[in-house]
């Protein structure tokens, strides 16, 4: 059974599935892969990729610009202590050198603009098992346009965790490449705690080595406009990718996450779970989960889920899972998506125990996300994330209630 491969569907060159102008392997994703800006038209809402995006709010990211260089970056262990250079190597390099530009290519206009605007790249290489998670702090220093590029690389057999945290005010185009060797087991966590006027477009390109696992988490808690696209594929059999997302959307904000999981090798597993809470007029979230199972990927086990909790009326959540299955010999390819409002009975129950409505809502929202964070299984990371979520929930709380909300 297992070695009977289905090869009756014509495919692009497996070594370069996105080569232009070869046939695209996915009908959901017909974009070229290219460093050349001219290969991408300026986004409009008529293009499938930009259908849910209010493109008129981000014209500044559609043409190359001179980056301000004002964004501040610092790297340490998660507790603030210095890193051991034997474990982790952090290098600043000219864009296009070292490992930058080696993991896929830009796949839309904004990622091509980022590549053609940024000049420097930060490479964080996990060389051997790290004892403590690595923390990269990205602090926006103002609204002058800036472009940043990161490469996160893990060598063969390495276990490690890295957190990239964004705060302050910024208008930032960001490129992130993540690559692992064989049998590496890492987590990458991206937290967006932007100020209310910030705009952030990011493009993550991930290549996971054979027998490796990656937990990729994205937590977007603030920003007027955030759009993060994540493309991932496998470098060999038995890869395991777990993508987790959490987002909060306030009135008038647009928060968008697009995941593209490509199963191109046998017996790999993927899980994508994104959960969001929206409140107020014109709060808008978009989640598009693409999963492509290629003919070369028998034994694929994939599942994606998106849940949205609408806290107050006037919010809009777009949620679109796309599955493209080109191989019949798979374990599973599931998806689920929902947009729901607050459960009045839950609220009444908590209120009837003396908990005022705003607090009750927070408890429920905390629980909604807490279930997801608990799955991470690394205490330091889970705590770090819950702290960020609690900070978000505790906005405007008195001190006594903050204490209660923050105690685990």
């Amino acid at each position: 059974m297992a070695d009977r491969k289905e090869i009756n569907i014509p495919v692009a060159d497996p070594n370069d599935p996105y080569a232009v102008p070869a046939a695209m392997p996915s009908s959901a994703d017909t974009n070229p892969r290219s460093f050349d800006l001219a290969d991408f038209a300026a986004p409009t809402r008529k293009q499938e990729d930009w259908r849910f995006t209010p493109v008129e709010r981000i014209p500044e990211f559609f043409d190359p610009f001179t980056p301000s260089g004002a964004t501040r970056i610092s790297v340490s262990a998660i507790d603030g202590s210095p890193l051991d250079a034997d474990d982790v190597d952090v290098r600043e390099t000219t864009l296009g050198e070292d490992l930058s530009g080696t993991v896929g290519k830009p796949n839309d206009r904004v990622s091509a603009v980022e590549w053609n605007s940024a000049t420097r790249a930060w490479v964080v290489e996990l060389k051997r098992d790290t004892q403590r998670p690595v923390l990269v702090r990205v602090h926006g220093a103002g609204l002058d346009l800036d472009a940043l590029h990161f490469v996160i690389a893990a060598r063969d057999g390495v276990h490690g965790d890295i957190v990239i945290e964004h705060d302050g005010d910024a208008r930032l185009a960001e490129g992130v490449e993540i690559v692992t060797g064989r049998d590496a087991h890492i987590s990458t966590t991206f937290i967006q705690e932007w100020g209310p006027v910030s705009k952030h477009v990011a493009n993550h390109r991930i290549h996971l080595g054979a027998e490796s696992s990656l937990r990729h988490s994205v937590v977007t808690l603030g920003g007027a406009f955030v759009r993060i696209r994540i493309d991932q594929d496998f470098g060999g059999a038995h890869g395991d990718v777990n993508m987790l997302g959490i987002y909060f959307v306030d009135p008038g904000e647009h928060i968008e996450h697009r995941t593209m999981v490509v199963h191109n090798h046998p017996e790999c597993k993927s899980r994508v779970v994104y959960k969001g809470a929206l409140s107020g007029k014109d709060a808008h979230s978009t989640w598009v989960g693409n999963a492509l199972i290629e003919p070369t990927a028998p034994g694929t086990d994939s599942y994606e889920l998106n849940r949205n909790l609408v806290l107050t009326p006037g919010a809009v959540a777009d949620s679109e899972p796309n599955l493209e299955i080109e191989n019949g010999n798979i374990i599973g390819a599931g998806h689920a998506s929902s947009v729901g409002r607050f459960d009045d009975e839950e609220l009444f129950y908590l209120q009837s125990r003396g908990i005022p409505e705003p607090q009750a809502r927070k408890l429920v929202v905390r629980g909604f996300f807490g279930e997801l964070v608990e799955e991470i299984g690394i205490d330091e990371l889970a705590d770090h994330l819950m702290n960020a979520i609690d900070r978000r929930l505790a906005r405007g709380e008195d001190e006594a209630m903050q204490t209660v909300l923050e105690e685990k």
Partner: protein
Amino acid sequence: MPTLEIKDLYASVETKEGRKQILRGVNLTVNSGETHAIMGPNGSGKSTLAYTLAGHPKYEVDSGEVLLDGEDILMMTPDERAKAGLFLAMQYPVEVPGVSMTNFLRTAKTEIDGRAPAIRTWTKELTEAMRRLKMDPKFATRSVNEGFSGGEKKRAEVLQLELLKPKFAILDETDSGLDVDALRIVSEGVNRAKEANDFGILMVTHYTRILKYIKPDIVHVFADGHFVKTGGPELADELEERGYDEYLPEGSDSESALA
């Protein structure tokens, strides 16, 4: 001494067939320390009374007042009523995924008392109360009511009753779905809480079996949206023998009448 006075209370609920008045002129006074059993046929409005007192948004008060120590609680939100000293043990406690029992209980305690409980005494009090209710300590870390069996949910309700120390407790069919052992444990919990805090109890029930464990001072028959008869504990025995038929309106098609 705290009193709970219900005066000529009328309340309605929106149904698919339109607005339906369920409570029709409820009058009752409960003093702290008293245990009132409220018995009656299905559909008579007993649970509606319980939920209306607690402030469930589904039920709309048409007229009347409910005074807790002279203050009209009908003007209050559900959490304000709880802070005023009212507690409703629900027939179907609601599951709240992702919110741990510990976090929930501590938050509720903080709100009711107006300040956070001292960690050490609170943990001890919680552990002790759970032990007495024969609850697995693991419950504290589980999500509120999630995946609890019927009996476990009722124990969790009584646990809250013990910890939150209200002035008046409404027990809405707390005996339903309990086996004999669970019924005894839950009843003992209620009695223990009452002994400690001397609150008034309104116990809504169909059956007399819980009355063997929680002794009522006063027994009421509730039918057609109001109290139709009041007596001592002996009234419960009478109901056990003769049923509710005589209290049902002419031509009533309630389940009890058909039974």
